[in-house]
Structures are given as C-alpha cells and as structure tokens.
C-alpha cells in the first residue's frame, strides 16, 4: 500500500476569544480517502476548529493546509471553491427557499454565469442552468429526498433537513466534506441510514471529517479519531485505541472516575 497523502494538515492551531482560549495548539492530519472523526465533550472547541478551517473564523495562531496549500486568511467562499464543503451543527439551510433551490445554491461555486448572461439568457447560461438543475436532482436522489424537492426547506423534519444540508454540500463538488454533528437529533434508524450515506459518500472519493457525539456511530465508521477536551488535543488514534485511552475516559466521565476504580 502506498503512503496515503494528507489532504488536510492542521498545525499548531490556536484560537482565542478575548481572554478565553477556545482551541489551543491542535495538530490534526486527515489522510485522503479517510473518514476521520473529531470528538470531545461539549464546549471542547470542535465547532470553533471547524470554523477556523472553513474560514468563518480566523485562527489566532497556527496553520491550516488543504492539499498542501495554506488556507489561513482565505475567505470562506474561496475555501469552498478549492474543494472544501461543510454542514452546520445548528442546521443553516436557506429555510424560506425550496429544497431544490438550496441544493442548486450549493452548485454556485462550480458554475459561472453572472450579470450579463443571466439577463440575456444566452445559450451558455441555459446550458449551465440545466446542468445545475440535473446535478441538484442527482444529489437529492443520492440522499433520498428527490420527492421533497419543491417543499420549503424550513418545513422539513429535522433528519431530512440534515440530509438536505449534506446534499447541498455535495453539490459543491468537494474533495473534503466537514460534517458537524450530522446525527444530532436523529433516531437510531435515521442514524443507521446516515452511516450508510457517509459510506456511500466515501465511495465517491470524498474525504470526510466528522464531529459527532454518537460514540457508537463514531467507533463504527471512523478510520481515525481525534479527541479534544477544553481546547486541547488529548488523544488520537484508531477507534479501538482511543476507546481505551485513560485520558479520554477521564475527559468524558470526569476526575471522580479515578477515585471509583
């Protein structure tokens, strides 16, 4: 087996908010084709880390390299364009737009037509529009929601909204997909479907970085798990190794765990 290339390289990443250090000195490396997970108790800094990687926050220190390109300082839209897509912990769909339009907007960064071609509706623009539409259909049927395409996104069930977010992110044609707690609020059956969906996404040669609280799911699908607590990385490794790490158990169960054993 050849040495797998690293697609995302986070080095020394630190983020302060005023006097609070949300993320401190974190190193994470995600290999191409992996399903990598990021776990940790609430408030550990996982979403802040995601925001720093996708350009919504700028890190106080450290570097983030995506396919060997330094992306610190790039705007979120530039990062999206070079092949990184994400979903949000607190679903951020365009709730007053239809499901189809949501997914079409995901295609924005892979299409071109602007003011003049939109107004003149020239042939190139019409071709692009039909391409965008068929691509959006494709993503919707991939996540199993083609029947809901004309509904307003805000009216969908929680689980379906999460799926639309994934379809919208996939429409961006990403190489790396960041999922922020995709199973939150899902019942066991929906979670199982989600696991299958994530496997199917990997089949498309998309690398996945996942924040998740559902340990059963994390241990089942991850190739690599990184654990952070209170902004610091406390463990990393294959799921089995992390599961048995003393520091991880302590972070989740608290110090009193030591006393009881």
């Amino acid at each position, binding site marked *: 087996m050849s040495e797998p290339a690293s697609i995302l390289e986070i080095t020394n990443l630190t983020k302060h908010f005023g006097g609070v250090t949300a993320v401190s000195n974190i190193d994470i490396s995600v290999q191409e084709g992996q399903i990598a997970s990021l776990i940790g108790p609430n408030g550990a800094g996982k979403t802040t880390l995601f925001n720093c990687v996708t350009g919504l926050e700028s890190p106080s220190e450290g570097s983030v390299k995506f396919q060997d390109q330094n992306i610190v300082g790039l705007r979120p839209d530039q990062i999206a364009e070079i092949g990184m897509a994400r979903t949000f912990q607190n679903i951020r769909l365009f709730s007053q737009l239809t499901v189809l339009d949501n997914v079409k907007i995901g295609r924005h960064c892979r299409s071109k037509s602007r003011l003049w071609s*939109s107004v003149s509706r020239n042939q190139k623009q019409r071709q692009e529009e039909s391409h965008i539409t068929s691509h959006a259909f494709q993503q919707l049927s991939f996540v199993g929601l083609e029947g809901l395409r004309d509904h307003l996104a805000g009216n969908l069930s929680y689980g379906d909204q999460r799926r639309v977010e994934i379809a919208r992110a996939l429409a961006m044609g990403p190489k790396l997909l960041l999922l922020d707690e995709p199973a939150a609020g899902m019942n066991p059956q929906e979670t199982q479907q989600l696991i299958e969906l994530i496997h199917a996404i990997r089949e498309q040669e998309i690398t996945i970085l996942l924040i998740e609280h559902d340990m059963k799911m994390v241990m089942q699908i991850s190739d690599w798990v990184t654990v952070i607590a209170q902004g610091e990385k406390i463990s990393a490794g294959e799921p089995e190794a992390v599961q048995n790490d003393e520091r991880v158990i302590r972070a989740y169960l608290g110090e009193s765990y030591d006393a009881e054993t």
Partner: protein
Amino acid sequence: MPRKLFTSKTVILFVAVCLFPLIAYGSDRIVDLLYERGIALPLPSGDYILRVVVQACLYMLLALGLNIVPGFTGLLDLGYVGFYLVGGYTAGLLMARLGWSYWIVLPLAAVHGALWGLLRGAPTLRLTGDYFAIVTFGFSELLFRIVKNEQWLIGGPNGFVNDIPPPILFGYQLNKYWQQYYHILILLVLTIVVVHRLQHSRVGRAWAAIREDERAAESMGINLREYKSLAFAVSAAIGAVGGAFFAQFQVNISAGVFEFWESIFILCMVVLGGMGTIKGSILGAGILGVLGELLREFGGWRYLIFGILLILIMRFRPAGLLSKKEQD
C-alpha cells in the same frame, strides 16, 4: 413556481395595457357627446387618467428596483430616493443645460446611478440590519442636501432645473401623455424582464442565499462582496432610469421631489405587495401610486390613510398582499 413570463394570461393583460390610452381618450369622447346632450358626467379627463397611470407605472419601476436590495438580498434600504435623484439630475442637467439627446442620457443615467450604488455599497458591505439602513438613509439625505444648496452646478436654492426638453423620436417630440404612457410602459416591461431573469438565475439564487443566511451563503462559495455590490448597482441603475424618465416627464425638477419621505413611500409599496416578489412590487406600487394621486386633494391627511392601510396589512397579511409563500 411559475418560471414562464409569456403565458396566455399575461399576453391578454399586455394587450389590454397596450390599448389603455384608447380607453382613456374614448371616455373623453363619451363625456363630450353626453355633454352636448345636456348630461354632465363627473369623469376625469383622459389626460388626467393617463397622467395618474404614468406616475403609477413610474412607481412600479422604482419599486421593482428597490425590491432587489431589501426583497432579494435582505438589506433594508431607506435611501433609494438617492439614486432616483442621481438619475433625475443627470438627465435634467445634461438635457436642459447641454442639450444632449435623451436616448444617450438615459443609459448614461443608469450607469451613473450604478456607480453611486457601488460607491454607497463600498463602506456598507460589512453592515447588516439597522446599521445598513442608517447609512442608506444618511446617503440619500446627503445627496438631497447637496442638490438643494449647491450653487456651481445646479445654481441656486432648491435645486431647480427648468425646461428639460422632451425626448425626440423620429422627429416627433414625445410630450403628450399617451406618448409618455408608452414610453414608461416600455421601460417598465424591460425592467420586469431584467429583474425576472435575474431572480431566476444563479445571481438571484445567490442573493436569496445572502438574504436567508449570510454565513451559510459564504460557505457555499458565494462572494458576499461581489453579489451585494451587484445588487446595489442593479438596484441603483433602475432607480436612476426612473429618475431620468421623471426629469423629462416633469419638465421642471427641484430638490423637493427627492425628500426622504419618497424613499419610505417606495419602500411601503414593496412591503405592501410583498417583499421579494415582482408581482408584489407591481401591485403595491399600483395601489399606493394611484391612491397617492387620487388623494392629493386631502393634502397631508392622505399620509394618515396610508398609515392606516399599512397597519391593516401588517395585521392581516404580515408578509404583504402577495406574500412569497402564496405565490410559490
């Protein structure tokens, strides 16, 4: 969602709209004939009807232009009259003082308006909500004060520009009401086509995404700076076209027309009909534009009537007469 503009219904409506001056002047003839037989009908004259309708059409054009910023992009614009003013004075000064042709001045006014839209946009790109609204208000007030007091270019208090010549088309002066009616109708239809096409394109979807959730839009690859600027420029250009039309229609313009109240009036039209929809802007402008003219004899009291109307709308149809959901 209806994507087709040219359905049988709209074609019939279009034909009726095209023949409207015939109806207006026809009623004149009927009134004349009956008067000769000793029956006096209290009907307004055809010219008056057309004048009111031209005003309403102008407001429709302005409402469509304004709608792009608060309706499509979700940023409250309280200074739209500023672009109307830029268009009005660009056309007024170039035509009355330099004798330029209206057909050159009209696109120039649009470009000039768009430039001011970009200029106003530059410092406001990072602002949202109340802060954006305050800047837009300040901007239009600034332009209003300048034309009101400026000496060198416009010359004198209240910014009078007089005797703006009518446009000339194939040797004919367009200074009759029915000519102006067709004139504004063509501008209005063009605006509707442009706005409709933009709304249902990649650009329109990007605007809607910004309106719904800026941060998510950014993460989808939408360059906020670029698409907000584009919205400001297109909106401002349409406002300036309205201003240029107004200048030649009114013949004499002065600063008083471009007071802050006018921005609110146009915004009310957009809100009344339903923000973010083309039909809503047209309907809202039609109702308030005609009403504003018919209630003119009540002077300041008509504002009371508008206020009550808006309160009723907010109470019973908070998303406007044609809210987006119902239209979809």
